[in-house]
């Protein structure tokens, strides 16, 4: 069946080498400015600028940098976890459980505090639980080799459920004054959580951009088999990423506990959507291998401006869900289209 087909295709090529083939080989590389322009981060930056201009026209509040920074504290905790999630997604995996990890580690913190532990010890318990939860995800994915997308849905329910077992439907509060209100501590006009976010962005951006591990993570996400053959310790790196995700989630959980002054099992409910949304808006490729911390950093501010803009425009929080969902879908479609173009 196949051989006659092959012959008919082959014969004209071997008979007369067409000039077309030569033209394709000599195709000029895309100009540098174009290569830069079709990077998804640039699209995020353009959107950020447009959103800022539109928002400033809408309400004079937006011209005030202090106002933006203040209203960003609600999203900044998610944005910090989204930085690590970016790296996880670049490595070709996904973690949908960070929001549940935030809730469980915060509830553990609250329970330990109620049991009489001093705050630093309770914080230690919380951070340790983040390590354990991340490691548990990591074991399921790297040792039992289950797909992370469904495993982390399972652990999402498990962690959130354990938080519910621990805290019931009551909220735990009564933390001492020095612990509460991290979002009101300022360095200049910058609230401390924002400072943490900026510092984490720089550190993780450098980690991903200039260290060997960072480059290896891109390699794993591009082709895991090739990475294994190149001697990259794929499972160890992925394990490390999941643990980092757990640890960061517990830090973010503590920041929420400090901001709210209380913890409940439903803390950060629906946060998985916000985190994935930030990463996708930042132009990280959902199938792995591409993306950057810079994109996620810009996307976090884009989200802050959009969300604050909607609140200023008196759109109810519930109705804002529509916009968030739509944004997520549009941003994956756009990112995919951009990568499809740049691959050509």
């Amino acid at each position, binding site marked *: 069946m196949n051989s006659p087909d092959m012959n008919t295709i082959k014969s004209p090529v071997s008979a007369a080498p067409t000039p077309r083939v030569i033209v394709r080989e000599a195709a000029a590389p895309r100009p540098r400015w174009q290569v830069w322009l079709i990077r998804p981060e640039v699209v995020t930056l353009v959107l950020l600028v447009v959103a800022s201009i539109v928002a400033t026209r809408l309400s004079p509040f937006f011209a005030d940098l202090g106002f933006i920074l203040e209203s960003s504290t609600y999203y900044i905790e998610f944005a910090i976890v989204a930085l690590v999630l970016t790296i996880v997604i670049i490595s070709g995996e996904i973690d949908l459980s960070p929001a549940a990890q935030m809730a469980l580690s915060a509830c553990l913190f609250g329970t330990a505090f109620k049991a009489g532990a001093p705050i630093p010890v309770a914080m230690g318990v919380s951070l340790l639980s983040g390590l354990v939860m991340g490691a548990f995800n990591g074991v399921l994915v790297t040792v039992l080799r289950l797909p992370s*997308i469904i495993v982390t849905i399972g652990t*999402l*329910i498990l962690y959130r*459920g354990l938080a519910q077992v621990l805290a019931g*439907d009551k909220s735990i509060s009564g933390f001492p004054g020095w612990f509460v209100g991290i979002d009101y501590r300022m360095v200049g006009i910058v609230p401390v959580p924002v400072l943490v976010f900026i510092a984490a962005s720089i550190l993780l951006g450098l980690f991903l951009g200039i260290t060997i591990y960072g480059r290896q993570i891109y390699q794993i996400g591009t082709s895991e088999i090739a990475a294994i053959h190149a001697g990259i310790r794929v499972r160890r790196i992925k394990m490390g990423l999941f643990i980092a995700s757990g640890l960061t989630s517990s830090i973010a959980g503590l920041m929420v506990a400090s901001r709210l002054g209380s913890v409940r*099992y439903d803390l950060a409910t629906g946060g998985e959507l916000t985190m994935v949304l930030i990463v996708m808006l930042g132009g990280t490729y959902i199938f792995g291998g591409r993306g950057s911390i810079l994109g996620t950093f810009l996307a976090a501010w884009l989200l802050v401006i959009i969300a604050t803009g909607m609140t200023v425009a008196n759109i109810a929080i519930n*109705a804002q869900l529509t916009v968030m*969902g739509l944004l997520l879908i549009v941003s994956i*479609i756009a990112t*995919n289209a951009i990568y499809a173009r740049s691959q050509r």
Partner: protein
Amino acid sequence: MSAISRLFRAREAGILVMLVLFVAVVSLIQPRFFSTETLRIVLLAVPLILVAAMGQMMVLVARHVDLSIGSILGFSAIAAGMIFRDHPEWPLYIGFAVGVLSGAALGFVNGLVVTLFKLPSIIVTLGTLSLYRGLLFILSGSKQIDPNDIPEPLIRMAQTSPIDIPWIVIIAFGVAFATWLFLTHSQIGRQIYAIGSNPTAAPLRGIRVMPVTILVFTLSGALAGLAGLIYAARFGYVNPGITGVGFEFTVIAAVVIGGVSINGGVGSVLGTVLGVLLLGSVQVALPILGVSGFWQNAIYGGIILIALVIDRTVRQGGLRGLLARGGA
């Protein structure tokens, strides 16, 4: 072929054993669990999950996931409830049509976005989970459909029928039977398995992957819409902020326990029904055992993870195969 069918049978037998063991153990601890009254409560608890689980099972068999069914359920329940409230003179079936069709429409959108742009369904439906929930808040004006707005005949469907088994139970098992017929005795049903088993090979065998996948998502949406009406019948109210929230996780738990593989191509109606019954029994047993209801989600999560590990073990040929191929 016979080896494969034996494997299928083994899977379902395993779930049946788990179900029997669970009922036996709970009955030993608390003898009053083993009664027709308990059976009645379980049967009343499962229709909601069972109907949506049939849709989710087909989606999983086609190697996709639908996370948006909780929001679709809420949307359809609100849409139908608003018909009941604003037009009490209209016959009941119009409300049913609105519920099921709005669910189908939302499911169709899921399928279209997933297939048209070749995106991972889990992320797309995570987006529509939020999108549809927002739409339902806008549609309802954040107002609840009160118990006295739900028509009396609909409430009665959750209580009785001419043959003394509540209508919603009959509907749920009828849907399961229809799904079994569709999946095992129709060409499209078999094609769903082919797509899930090997998405690359399916188009080469002449299967039109895109329309079939869209159909699967549409069916999942329509069944979630039907579940929305069952919700209204059983609970007697619809609240935009409560109805269907987190429902997708319960359904995925039931389906995965039922032996449906998340890697596509594997799953049966019988297994899913058993999975739903097991989950329903757990739900009913917790208060009887004196375990706080707060444990429910943690148990569901644990069950999902155990089912995933078992699925992996079965595919790798036992525990040894699971741990032996270390490497990397």
